[in-house]
């Protein structure tokens, strides 16, 4: 038998709507039939674990990891840091956090990106790290530029960093985006607007964290992430021991 714990049901209402006509690609790519619900099983309650041995010294430094330290990326230097927690408020330690982003001009290093902003020869655009025992993580990077994208006639993505988080269970798997405090494009973005509860969208907006910045070097932004929790009851713990 397994020693895994039941996941709290996902609160779908706090997430974006799958089908949103203002985000055109979601129209043919959202299931039209209801999802099949059931209590989590060991297949969702277990998940891959990644050790700190996976990481290279520059993996969480997007300013220098593409050139392996030989040259620095162009752009405004920032530190992005925060904690990964679960719904019970407990830290999620030793979990993999991956990010990817556009360069300072709003261009991705990807075959599908045809925006004419130039590639930065010193910027790859991906990074990863593993949270410490308190769920804490940090990245050094440059502030990504806003960029236009084909949707409605004149849509622009606000500055954002894509985040991928594992947690400790496959059912906790999450991909999201971090936005920046004060960016006026957030209020015009159809992708941000797929989240219908404004207070939930606000949880994706990282505040400027001047106290964590380093004078004459970088600004800091704080971004905490909450994953699904496990249901814990004394009753169930006793039952499992019987």
């Amino acid at each position, binding site marked *: 038998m397994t020693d895994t714990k039941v996941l709290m049901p996902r609160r779908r209402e706090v997430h974006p709507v799958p089908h949103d006509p203002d985000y055109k690609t979601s129209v*043919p790519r959202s*299931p039209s039939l209801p999802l*099949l619900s059931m209590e989590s099983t060991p297949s969702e309650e277990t998940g891959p*674990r990644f050790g700190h041995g996976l990481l290279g010294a520059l993996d969480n430094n997007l300013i220098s990891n593409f050139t392996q330290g030989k040259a620095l990326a162009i752009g405004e230097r920032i530190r992005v840091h925060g904690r990964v927690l679960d719904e019970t408020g407990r830290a999620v330690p030793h979990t993999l956090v991956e990010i990817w982003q556009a360069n300072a001009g709003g261009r991705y290093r990807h075959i599908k990106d045809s925006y004419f902003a130039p590639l930065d020869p010193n910027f790859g655009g991906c990074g990863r790290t593993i949270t410490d025992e308190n769920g804490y993580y940090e990245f050094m990077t440059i502030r990504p530029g806003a960029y236009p994208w084909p949707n409605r006639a004149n849509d622009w993505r606000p500055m954002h960093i894509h985040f991928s988080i594992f947690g400790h269970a*496959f*059912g906790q798997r999450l991909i999201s985006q971090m936005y920046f405090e004060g960016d006026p494009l957030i209020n015009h973005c159809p*992708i941000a607007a797929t989240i219908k509860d404004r207070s939930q969208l606000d949880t994706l907006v990282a505040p400027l964290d001047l106290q964590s910045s380093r004078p004459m070097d970088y600004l800091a932004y704080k971004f905490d992430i909450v994953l699904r929790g496990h249901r814990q009851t004394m009753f169930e713990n006793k039952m499992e021991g019987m």
Partner: protein
Amino acid sequence: MVQTLNTLIETPSQTSGPYVHIGCIPSFAGIEGIYPEDLGKSPIAHGAKGEIITISGSIFDGTGWTMRDAMFESWQADATGRFAGQEGADPQVSGFCRFAAGKDTGQFTLRTIKPGAVKMRGGSVMAPHISLWIVARGINIGLNTRIYFDDEDNSADPLLARIEQRQRVDTLIAKKVADGQYRFDVRLQGAGETVFLDL
């Protein structure tokens, strides 16, 4: 007034967008040299116990178009039904794989070992299956589904049993096309829409 609940709210999902490969499988995006290799290249290492199989397929949007930008993650038990990290699990089976729909063909392939049946709390048993998580541009929250096998006994599987419209069960079952080879297609909408899961 009442007491305040201490629970937090899960961070909302956002679409992975079209450039998910940069962050998750950078070599697919042509980015080399940051990591020694992409994460989750294979769910099995040399010497993994069990039958080696490949599962190939495509993913279709609601218009029937083959999507070329989806990324998949799979998670599975070893040949005896144990997950990595559990007591007695095969150390050569990580169980985790990342793979993408081909840029030009839209075809994906997962090479792994056939998983064993998995015991649940309370003693019931799930038929051999692989959990699948799908992200892409236009998918606002990652889609969960499962791959079962048409040459296994799926009749007592507790998840499949919950599907009311019995013809939809078929959307979760990979078809054997040759020895060790299976076909599994994903349809996001329309006729034959895959059963997606909330668990």
